[in-house]
């Protein structure tokens, strides 16, 4: 697995030089290499009973919920929004499913599990509609609109489970989070969602429309786009992703814990998106970046576990990685890099600033449209108009 990634990274290196995917990939490879150096068994993968076993498979399995949520979050962030409620939505999905299964006539049957899953996803759809309604129709800032559900959502989940941890024994339900189909089923679901989103947004104009809404919602509306519908849709999609991730989390442990299921996962997901190179200011997003970002987050967590450090200390490492990646991506720092490279190599015709367009298709169609200066100016204009 890792050899494939390393080789891929080397091959792509020339193309992505100067692109946003370079540093995250370097970080991921460095992390895996550090692990392999410390623990030679880290890279080994063995096949047993038709299942793959190994640390790398564990990373994929445990990273699936984060990846799925980060996928929804990527689209939300691309429209210049953010969804803080995903952790709470994940908790609600797990709570609904487990209470339904426990309350059904035959708690071990697949039918009970399917009913529970259907109910949970329907509820997530409603919650997503609610977030989208607040953001797109009422025009409330996304951070604060989703903060409402983030605060109240955990309360709702507690209400559903009555404050208890609900355990279920249902083999069908268990498959979603803990099952294997050669690979862990959870990562297969997450990857399928990723591929589907990539096809739908990059092979049609939808991705372009989402990015243009992120760059300027008002101008997109005037250009004839249904900005509101697009914004509404991405919130619904994010909530659905969160719901499925919540199912994975609760099914992996065969229990619903309203208090701690998906706690801080919104932060992990946002980090994954940011590490992957999507701008929090909206307007451009990178799905492959999100994939790499989610893998980095999970590898980091696993690394800390396997190094025997208290798991809580992972947070310090996450903070350091976030700051490092953000600084590397910061326009000001990149500007300095460019200047230095230009002064070292004045004859080079292709300055790094243009190589962004050579990067993979995920890169923004309009890389210059989102310089912070223009952004700040348009923001301040809005504020002047408001006050």
């Amino acid at each position, binding site marked *: 697995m890792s050899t494939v990634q390393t080789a891929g990274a080397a091959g792509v290196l020339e193309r992505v030089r100067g692109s946003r995917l370079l540093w995250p990939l370097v970080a991921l490879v460095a992390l895996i290499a550090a692990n392999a150096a410390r623990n030679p068994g880290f890279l080994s993968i063995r096949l047993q009973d038709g299942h793959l076993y190994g640390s790398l498979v564990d990373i994929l399995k445990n990273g699936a919920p984060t990846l799925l949520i980060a996928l929804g979050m990527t689209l939300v962030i691309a429209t210049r929004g*953010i969804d803080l409620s995903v952790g709470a939505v994940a908790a609600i999905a797990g709570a609904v499913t487990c209470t339904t299964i426990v309350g059904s006539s035959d708690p071990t049957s697949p039918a009970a599990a399917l009913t529970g899953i259907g109910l949970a996803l329907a509820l997530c759809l409603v919650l997503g509609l609610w977030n989208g309604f*607040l953001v797109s129709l*009422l*025009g*409330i*800032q996304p*951070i*604060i*609109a989703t*903060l*409402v*559900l*983030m*605060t*109240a*959502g*955990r*309360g*709702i989940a*507690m*209400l559903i489970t009555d*404050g208890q941890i609900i355990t279920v024994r249902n083999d069908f339900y268990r498959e979603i989070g803990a099952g294997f189909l050669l690979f862990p089923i959870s990562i297969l679901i997450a990857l399928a969602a990723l591929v589907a989103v990539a096809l739908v947004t990059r092979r049609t104009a939808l991705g372009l429309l989402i990015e243009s809404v992120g760059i300027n919602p008002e101008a997109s509306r005037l250009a004839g786009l249904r900005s509101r519908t697009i914004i509404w849709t991405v919130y619904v999609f994010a909530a659905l992703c969160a719901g499925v991730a919540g199912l994975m989390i609760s099914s992996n442990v065969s229990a619903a814990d309203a208090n701690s299921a998906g706690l801080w996962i919104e*932060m992990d997901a*946002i*980090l994954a998106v*940011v590490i992957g190179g999507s701008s*929090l*200011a909206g307007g451009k997003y990178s799905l492959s970046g999100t994939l790499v970002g989610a893998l980095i987050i999970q590898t980091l967590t696993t690394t800390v576990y396997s190094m025997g450090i*208290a798991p*809580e*200390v*992972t*947070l*310090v*490492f*996450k*903070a*350091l990685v*976030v*700051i490092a990646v*953000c*600084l590397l991506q*910061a*326009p*000001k*720092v990149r500007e300095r890099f460019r200047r230095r490279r230009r002064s070292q190599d004045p004859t080079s015709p292709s300055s790094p600033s243009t190589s962004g367009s050579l990067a993979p298709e995920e890169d923004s169609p309009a890389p210059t449209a989102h310089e*912070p200066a223009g952004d*700040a*100016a348009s923001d*301040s204009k809005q*504020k*002047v*108009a*408001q*006050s």
Partner: protein
Amino acid sequence: MTTTTPTKRTVPALSRLPGIPGRVLPVIATFVLFVLLFGAGSVRYEGFTSGQVFANLFIDNAFLIVLAVGMTFVILTGGIDLSVGAVVALSTMVAAAALRAGLPAPVVILLVLAIGTGLGVLMGLVIHHFELQPFIVTLAGMFMARGLCFVIGVESISIKDPFFRALATGTIELPGGVVITWSVVIALAIVAAAVWVLHRTRFGRTIYAIGGSESSATLMGLPVGRVKVAAYAISGLCAAVAGLLFSVYMLSGYGLHAVGMELDAIASVVIGGTLLSGGVGYVLGSLLGVLVLGVIQTLISFQGTLSSWWTKIAIGTLLLLFIVMQRLFMRRTP
């Protein structure tokens, strides 16, 4: 729901009245809500109307008041500080560990304040000089502070220092038999200082100017960078003070103290009428916001049959009502 209908209806009427600027309206609405909630409690429950119940609102939320004051500064500049809850936890942890190591209390207090302010300055510098989003930088700060707590220790550490114990048990008796703690005095002093700074100093006006429009403030020649960094420093300082008050309140240091408290602080500030886009809002509004949250908690504990998670739902609902109200209010006064 019943509480918002009258306030909504009064919005256009009041804004036509001379002498009441439209910006004060959200604060008035919060005050009305507070009075209504407190009145409802007085009608429903015996013994709710005592002065001590009112004083307890301050005693149990002194740290949240301080936290909301710091958050107000940051939100007024148009930023946000997600790290405050974690800094509170870090402060309790540092205080407890340093006291256990035998450092004298004044040194410990200075150390905690220095760490909190230092973290704030650091985040402010990164936000300003690298033009990163406050959201993501303070998120990293939150992870950092929480993680450092666990680097110090994973277990809860109790505080046995006589000065902290004295502060925790010492009370002041007000006329009427109402008893308050020193934490309340400290919190209210900080509120008073913040009001003075925001409304009577050049620094305070610069904060409002940055929140109104950062580029205009820069063009006016205001020291935008310095003031922005200072706002995050103040927030860090307030979080450290809140952490000290919290360690006095709990008499222990623990890395899982104050989980999600940043959300309570943000909710108080929003309920207090401060706009998240910056430039509009008052510290007194944030104080009222904290009191509203406190009243809800008291109401739920008086009811007895409701579980604690109803608090979360109630806070979420209130947050929603106030955001929608802000929205309507913004549309009416272009």
